[in-house]
């Protein structure tokens, strides 16, 4: 990486971000308290990591969820919403409940993917406790196996009203 390439990157940054389109419309209840700022804490309750790849893509340069006021944080105490992927396996019930209990009110649970909604292809597995809705009260579902980044972005934009 030469000095010239660095200077060129600074002077002419190449943006890869796609056009977002019109605002999808605010979620009637949940968007109000957020005032356009949403911090997410992600928990993988037992997924195959397909949804995680889509989340990574949603926060990447092409879809760029951050421009709508969304950010991933490390601690549930800093978070407004809990983003859960995968069916809830038996070992993850306790940690998932503790994570939710550690969040300050008002708090939202977003179930991402078909597995989070109704266990998807893992329904009936011996290690699976149930869907996210069986363990926590879910406010937003994003369906898909895995959900398209645009769907993720649309759900998040509904929460921040941007």
């Amino acid at each position, binding site marked *: *990486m030469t000095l010239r390439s*660095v200077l060129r*990157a*600074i002077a002419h*940054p*190449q*943006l*890869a*971000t796609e056009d977002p389109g019109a605002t999808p419309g605010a979620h009637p209840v949940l968007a109000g*308290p*957020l*005032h*356009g*700022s949403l*911090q997410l804490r992600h928990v993988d309750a037992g997924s195959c990591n397909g949804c995680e790849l889509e989340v990574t893509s949603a926060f*990447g*340069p*092409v879809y*760029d969820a*951050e*421009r709508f*006021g969304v*950010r*991933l*944080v*490390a*601690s549930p*105490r*800093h978070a*407004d919403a809990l983003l859960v992927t995968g069916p809830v396996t038996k070992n993850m019930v306790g940690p998932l409940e503790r994570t939710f209990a*550690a969040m*300050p*009110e*008002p708090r939202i649970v977003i179930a991402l993917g078909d597995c989070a909604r109704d266990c998807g292809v893992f329904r009936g597995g011996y290690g699976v406790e149930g869907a996210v809705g069986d363990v926590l009260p879910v406010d937003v579902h994003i369906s898909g196996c895995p959900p398209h980044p645009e769907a993720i972005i649309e759900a998040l934009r509904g929460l921040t009203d941007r």
Partner: protein
Amino acid sequence: MTGLAQVSSTVLMAFVQIAVVAVGGPLLLGVMRKVRSRLEGRVGAPIHQPLLDLRKLLTKQRMRPREASWIFGAGPVILVATAVAVAAISPLATTRPPLGQSSDFFAIVLVLLLGAVFLALSALDTGTPFAGMGSSRAMTIGALAEPALLVAILAMSIPTRTSNLPALVRIGLAHPSVIASPARILALGSFLVVILAESGRLPVDNPNTHLELTMIHEAMVLEYSGPDLGLIILGESMRLVLLLGLLVNLFLPWGVANRPGALMFVIGLGALALKVVVTGVAIAVFEVFTAKMRLFRLPELLAGGFILAVLGAVTAMAAR
């Protein structure tokens, strides 16, 4: 000016400086994030996003660990209070700030240290292992960065025979040769290293990391929520603005108001904003192209800063 008019204008000046730093802190944070986003090839959040975050944090529930004492709640307050006090008396927009007589460089550094110490204490008060880890690492880095800072202050104070901050800025304005002197430039290098260490930027600490074992400052605040978290974010961003403001006014003082008067003060504020934003952007660009250093390589970096400061002091003494 009559006594009352003078007092009220001083108080007003203090308020304005505090307000500019308090609002400018989150804005600077937003600018730095924006620059980082652009260089990563994406649009990024708008510049005022940290202000929106702070507003939302005020509305969230406050949570306190079961066995924490009063220090847990006092930490964020003292962090912000020290930043407010320093913002009021520092020569940011003018060389005649409120209480300028006692605006001593040594005192200001130690007031900022008071805030950092209380943050470290309140982290230990949470009783969680990661907070202890963050506190331990932060204190180690502070222990090694403070010598560099104090010797850099000495290097800057020797040619001017005073450690009073407004006097340092005034002398810099009046005699530009003092700023271009090798002693000052070496002290500048040392000061930059210390600012990166104290404000937790790369290569010392990654402010965007989610891996607890790589955290230093972030680990200390994992337990805070709601308004307390908002105060901490505000306090940290105010400290960054203050440190950068002192840096630019000591090494590039042009634009600072040297004569009394409201117009000069406003111009000084504008110059401060411009210089701090440019420096912040430079740091953000530097961060994009730098990797975080291993924790146990940091003493080498900080020792390097210390050597620069010592060289600066020796040069200053030799030049007298």
